[in-house]
């Protein structure tokens, strides 16, 4: 009788995933708090990883009736090295010999955090919980699906314009070899026989004549194989695949002028980082344009956007102008959902701020699905804020928030992008 061995290694691995997600759902409050703490602690670049989360052990205890400390008990322990019957000694503090009351160790354990690691997905899920990019649905539903034709191999039927000559000729050559092959072998044999006979027999010998006729007949058969047959024809095949038209482009506008100190830039960077993660996660076809500005604006790649440093005065409108230009050139608003997010400390040249408002109101807001402005300052509102405030009531898809410290980012971010009914 041989034993039955079952190889289960390839069975589903995540038997516990339901329980795991239930655990996370149940303690979402505590976990969310840890997550937002974690965001503040983290550097910008490693936001995209999982996170080690600790939640208070007491909160998740599974209570049962059990004895507490006190009363009388006898404890048997191994390894006696010094005691004789009747010895008396102080209660050890925490662990050790008789364990004593164990107040320190037992209670200490109870208070310990329960530490575990969230996967990247779980981490982000909690992080982006209940958020959705506003108004994306609108165009998603309104737009007719477009198709793109892509090559997809070859077929045997099609229109003449699509004939693929190379494939067709290759097939024809193959067919001729396959069909003519046996004849060719026979022909070579007959020719050899004939050559042999001719050495001994005269030309008009019956057998020689017979062989010659046979050779002629075979040649004719080989000749009669068509050079090309309808069977050989191959056509380029093209199929239609749906082209997602729910593409969105996100403009990140960042003030890197001299008035934005390192701490403020850091806050802004984190805000965009969250935004970028959020977009990457929620929408597959999304492009992000990074524009940073001081007195002049420039479009940079993600790397430069978050890392490089510049300084100088501030002309906010330069960034808006550049954004408008890029929209006109590359992202026609018929095809793209456009989102804008601007971060600044609100410090701007006084006469530039009204121009910013005008630009926003006349050029950008009409083509944008959503535009968010965050002002990173702990002081009084600056002139840009005041100008922008004039827009707030009349434009539903314009939002503005103020962030004072790094811990404000998360709530503000949620507020800005919270799921709208």
């Amino acid at each position, binding site marked *: 009788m041989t*034993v*039955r*061995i*079952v*190889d*289960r*290694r390839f*069975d589903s*691995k995540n*038997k*516990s995933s*339901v*329980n*795991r*997600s*239930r*655990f*996370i*759902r*149940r303690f979402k409050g505590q976990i969310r708090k840890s997550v937002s703490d974690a965001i503040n602690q983290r550097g910008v670049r490693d936001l995209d990883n999982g996170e080690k989360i600790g939640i208070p052990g007491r909160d998740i*205890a*599974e*209570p*049962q*009736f*059990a*004895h*507490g*400390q*006190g*009363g*009388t*008990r*006898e*404890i*048997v*322990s*191994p*390894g*006696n*090295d010094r*005691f*004789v*019957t009747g*010895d*008396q*000694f*102080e*209660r050890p503090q925490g*662990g*050790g*010999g*008789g*364990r*004593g*009351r164990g107040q320190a160790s037992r209670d200490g354990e109870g208070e310990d955090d*329960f*530490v*575990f*690691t969230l996967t990247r997905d779980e981490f982000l899920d909690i992080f982006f919980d209940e958020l959705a990019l506003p108004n994306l649905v609108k165009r998603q539903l309104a737009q007719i699906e477009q198709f793109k034709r892509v090559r997809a191999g070859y077929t045997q039927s099609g229109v003449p314009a699509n004939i693929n000559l190379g494939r067709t000729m290759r097939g024809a050559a193959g067919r001729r070899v396959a069909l003519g092959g046996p004849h060719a072998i026979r022909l070579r044999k007959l020719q050899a026989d004939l050559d042999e006979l001719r050495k001994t027999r005269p030309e008009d010998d019956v057998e020689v004549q017979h062989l010659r006729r046979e050779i002629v007949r075979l040649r004719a058969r080989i000749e009669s194989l068509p050079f090309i047959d309808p069977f050989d024809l191959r056509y380029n095949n093209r199929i239609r695949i749906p082209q997602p038209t729910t593409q969105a482009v996100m403009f990140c506008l960042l003030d890197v002028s001299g008035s934005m100190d390192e701490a403020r830039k850091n806050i802004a960077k984190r805000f965009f980082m969250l935004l970028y993660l959020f977009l990457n996660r929620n929408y597959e076809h999304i492009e992000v344009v990074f524009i940073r500005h001081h007195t002049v604006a420039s479009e940079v790649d993600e790397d430069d956007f978050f890392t490089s440093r510049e300084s100088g005065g501030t002309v906010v409108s330069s960034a808006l102008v550049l954004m408008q230009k890029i929209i006109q050139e590359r992202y026609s608003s018929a095809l793209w959902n456009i989102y804008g997010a601007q971060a600044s400390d609100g410090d701007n040249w006084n006469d530039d701020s009204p121009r910013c408002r005008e630009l926003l109101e006349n050029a950008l807001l009409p083509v944008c699905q959503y535009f968010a402005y965050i002002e990173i300052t702990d002081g009084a509102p600056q002139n840009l804020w005041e100008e922008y405030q004039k827009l707030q009531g009349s434009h539903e898809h314009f939002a503005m928030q103020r962030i004072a410290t790094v811990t404000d980012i998360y709530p503000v971010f949620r507020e800005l992008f919270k799921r709208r009914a």
Partner: protein
Amino acid sequence: MTQMPVALAKPLPVGSEWTFEAITEYDEAIGEVAREYGLDCYPHILEVISAEQMMDAYASIGMPVYYNHWSFGKHFLATENRYRRGQMGLAYEIVINSDPCIAYLMEENTLTMQALVIAHAAYGHNSFFKGNHLFKQWTSADAIIDYLVFARNYIAECEERHGVEAVERLLDACHALMNVGVDRYKRSPRLSLEKEKLRQKEREAYLQAQVNDLWRTLPPRPEAEAMPREEKRFPEEPEENLLYFIEKNAPLLEPWQREVVRIVRKVGQYFYPQRQTQVMNEGWACFWHYTLLNTLYDRGALSDGFMLEFLQSHTNVVYQPPYNSPYYSGINPYALGYAMWQDIRRICENPTDEDREWFPDIAGSDWRATFDFAMQNFKDESFIAQYLSPRLMREFRLFSVLDDDRRGKLRVEAIHDDSGYRLLRQQLSEQYDLGSREPNIQVWNVDLSGDRSLTLRHFVHQRRPLNEYNDVVLEHLTELWGFKVRLERQNSDGTVDLLTEKKTERRRHN
């Protein structure tokens, strides 16, 4: 040692990489030796799993199927975290008390470890499950998997019908009472899937009728009212199994809720023997993996390299750190159990005068017969009380310390000397008595005619109080009972005082 015929066996595969063929060969060889020793086992299945699956199995107490609950997720996360940080190796064996018995082999293990696990789990534990009276009486190895499937499906169905939240709340409450939800003395009827399914429906109807009858609100008869009322308690005898009492008598539970209570209770009952026989069971398995593999080695089937690796992990498992070591965390059940079984064999084969005095009935007897008797008829508590020898107490250098909170100092009560052996043995045995280790809490009374409140009574043992969780547990109980719940304490002098009282916050209407 050598009652076995010393026949040279063909060498088994060597190397650390395992293959299915090699495992089969080992299993056959080990099985053959086990049969020669007369081990009576269920047939077994070996399942090869990955480390991740092992963690899954861990989280659900080793069960291949189990219902879903967040607490299992918590255990999974805790295990995973410790494993990832390298704080713990995964125990390399999990074995399921079922017929056929299922033993897991972890993919990462070497061939030697696989052989060790086969000997330990598939023959050691397996024969214990089949032979020990507690397992025979209390668990139905042939039906447990079926029952767990039934439980999982039933609970999933409840989640669909009544919402995950409601089921979760109910399970939380049941889990809190799981350790006071076992029958300690009564034997539960056997489980069977068909029976369960068949009877579950009628049970629903019947139980509800019972409960309704109990709580019938007929207008009281005047003459009865006039008679001097004698205080009659319900239940008439205190009930130790809280979950059972809830299942049968809680007035407001719906039929599906009763069924869920029953499921948790049944599963708890299934694990009860395991909690009572840890030392014996692990010791038995260690003894047999050691004996089986050594026998194979003596016959030339195993290489020296194999034995070195095997002995290395064997000694790790049965190591008992002394009380003052940083690694000390109580008595290692593997160490104690293994040492006791080895010691029993020694007493049978090479008894000293001391052994003859202490164990006149087994000294010099046939060790296999003695083993089977001991394995079949004891649990940890009684096993230690019966078989712990003075020699072993000396070897372990056991000593007993009295911790009385009325005294300022701890006192050494007994050590491993002539005057201490009996006391030491009795106290160690008591340490393994679940009855005294866990608080004795029973259903005392239900105020049938009044506010329907439920009174529990904690029978205090050696003045030990309950821990701080009793409040939360009581809340869970209130949730199940649906009316006020009281917890009383009965001290050893017979006086009774009220510990806590919980009122229901709301009547449940779901």
